[in-house]
């Protein structure tokens, strides 16, 4: 009987514990809601957008926001619906950041793991490359790439990857240097486990916290970078629904058609703020040591 009771109690405690655990996470709700909205817009853009984002309509040009029910956020100088373009722009942003950040994280982590574990000349080479990539002005890199390979969404991705991998490589390498001196790694070595397996099975899982922290802190920067490349006309075809391009389109007519630049820029700022706050939260939760950096 007594044991029944404790069992029951612990079950309740467990259910309550889950709620409590979620509560204790102190999730930053506003950023989370903004991020979810962005992801939903990106995933379901064709369903959510009221109109074709590239549908030109000379009859409905320059409608200000909050005037027409048909185009709640107004239209641009070619009569395209701003709301629909914003929703599709979310798709462009999410696509580029996801692919670029994913690739950068993958390449950077692998190089960081190898550099940290192997040491010697390989380490020196990779870290020198990382220093060069970290310091060099990104827009310059993007310009060189666009000059070599021409315009195209994949070249924006490449430009972002070239600059972003180094942060991952550097931080992961630092982690590996500490982890590889730990007993379980040394034991695995003595047991004759081969290097690739040690890296994959014993070292990599211990770097995942760092990986998540850097990734979440980088999202905002990647979105800003992608937006400024789009603004400068490097990479995406003109007229494509991307926030950076929309800001550029509104620039020359800013005085009369002020909402064209204002709205997409606001969208970029809000999204970047949300990711930055979320990144801070991830860092504080997973790795308080990094807080000072």
């Amino acid at each position: 009987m007594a044991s029944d009771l404790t069992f029951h109690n612990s079950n309740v405690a467990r259910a309550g514990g889950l709620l409590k655990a979620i509560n204790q996470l102190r999730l930053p709700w506003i950023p989370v809601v903004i991020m979810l909205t962005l992801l939903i817009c990106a995933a379901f853009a064709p369903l959510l957008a009221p109109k074709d984002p590239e549908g030109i309509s000379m009859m409905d040009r320059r409608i200000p926001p909050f005037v027409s029910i048909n185009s709640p956020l107004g239209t641009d100088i070619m009569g395209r619906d701003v709301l629909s373009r914003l929703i599709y722009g979310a798709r462009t942003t999410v696509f580029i950041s996801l692919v670029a950040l994913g690739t950068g994280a993958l390449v950077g982590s692998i190089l960081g793991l190898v550099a940290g574990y192997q040491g010697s000349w390989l380490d020196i080479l990779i870290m020198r490359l990382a220093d060069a990539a970290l310091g060099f002005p990104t827009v310059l890199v993007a310009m060189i790439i666009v000059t070599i390979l021409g315009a195209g969404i994949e070249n924006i991705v490449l430009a972002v990857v070239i600059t972003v991998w180094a942060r991952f490589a550097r931080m992961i390498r630092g982690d590996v240097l500490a982890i590889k001196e730990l007993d379980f790694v040394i034991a695995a070595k003595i047991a004759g486990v081969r290097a690739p397996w040690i890296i994959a099975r014993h070292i990599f899982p211990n770097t995942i916290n760092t990986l998540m922290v850097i990734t979440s802190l980088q999202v905002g920067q990647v979105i800003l970078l992608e937006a400024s490349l789009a603004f400068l006309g490097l990479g995406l075809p003109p007229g494509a629904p991307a926030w950076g391009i929309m800001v550029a389109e509104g620039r020359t007519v800013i005085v009369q058609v002020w909402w064209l630049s204002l709205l997409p820029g606001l969208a970029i700022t809000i999204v970047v703020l949300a990711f930055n706050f979320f990144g801070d939260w991830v860092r504080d939760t997973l790795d308080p040591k990094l807080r000072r950096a």
Partner: protein
Amino acid sequence: MRRFIIARVFQSIITLLILSLAVFLSVHLSGDAASFLLGPEATAADYEQIKENMGLNRPLVIQYGDFLLNIVQGDFGRSHLMRRSARDVLLERLPATLQLAGAAFVLSIIVGIPLGVLSAVRRDTFLDNLGKLFATMGIATPNFWIAIMLVLLFGAILGWLPTYGRGGIDHFILPAFVLGWSSMAGMVRLGRSSMLEVLDSEYVKFARIKGLSERVVIYKHALKNAIIPLLTFSGLTLAGLLNGSVAVEVVFAWPGIGRLMLEGISRRDFPIVQATVLAAGFFYVVTALLVDILYAYVNPRIRFN
């Protein structure tokens, strides 16, 4: 110290060589220069002739060597569009960019560092919150957008400031602020955390126990040590300033090399692209080198490592 400097100079030269190779290959891969120069009525023989004349039939390595030799002598070729030597165009536009970047740099130091330090000293006051807001927004707002919004507000609506081109001091205010905001934001953040850390240290506590006035403790003892990380950071902001200057120059119609670079790319004027990219890269590498040497001079732990 001498060994450190030699190693660092060597590194910089390697970086510049890699950059020059990237630029050389980019021009080489992005189009056939010979067919670019020929009209539609040219024959295959003309094409071969011009290739031979331009030295395009020689091995790539030799062409690259030639290219390097020309660059070192300041010869970037002739701009197709402006029908002038790319070097002259570059030299004409360079001062505008350097002035703007310099103004933004100075602004980010004279605003960023004091704001960051005061934020730490007056922790959790209104001033601190203001500093944090300023920093958070500076890191999250795209500079090209804030530039356009300021043009709208101060130029079109209020009419207080010029928003177009180069001129007196007033022409600098908006572009320098926009260009410098993100590095100012970084200075505020770093200055604040660095100052907080120093204020928590043993020697500051000791200075307080000794009975020194708060002003002497903060501005004489703490500040000097809090500023060291800011020095390195100020070197890193240079890359950011070069990055930002392209968009800022476009929005404010600033006649600098950022805009020139973009024009060169969109109109496929390769000598201009070469000249501007190499100049920007050179400027960046040299300043990074100077900052590193200065830093090693200030902080002995670096140079003996």
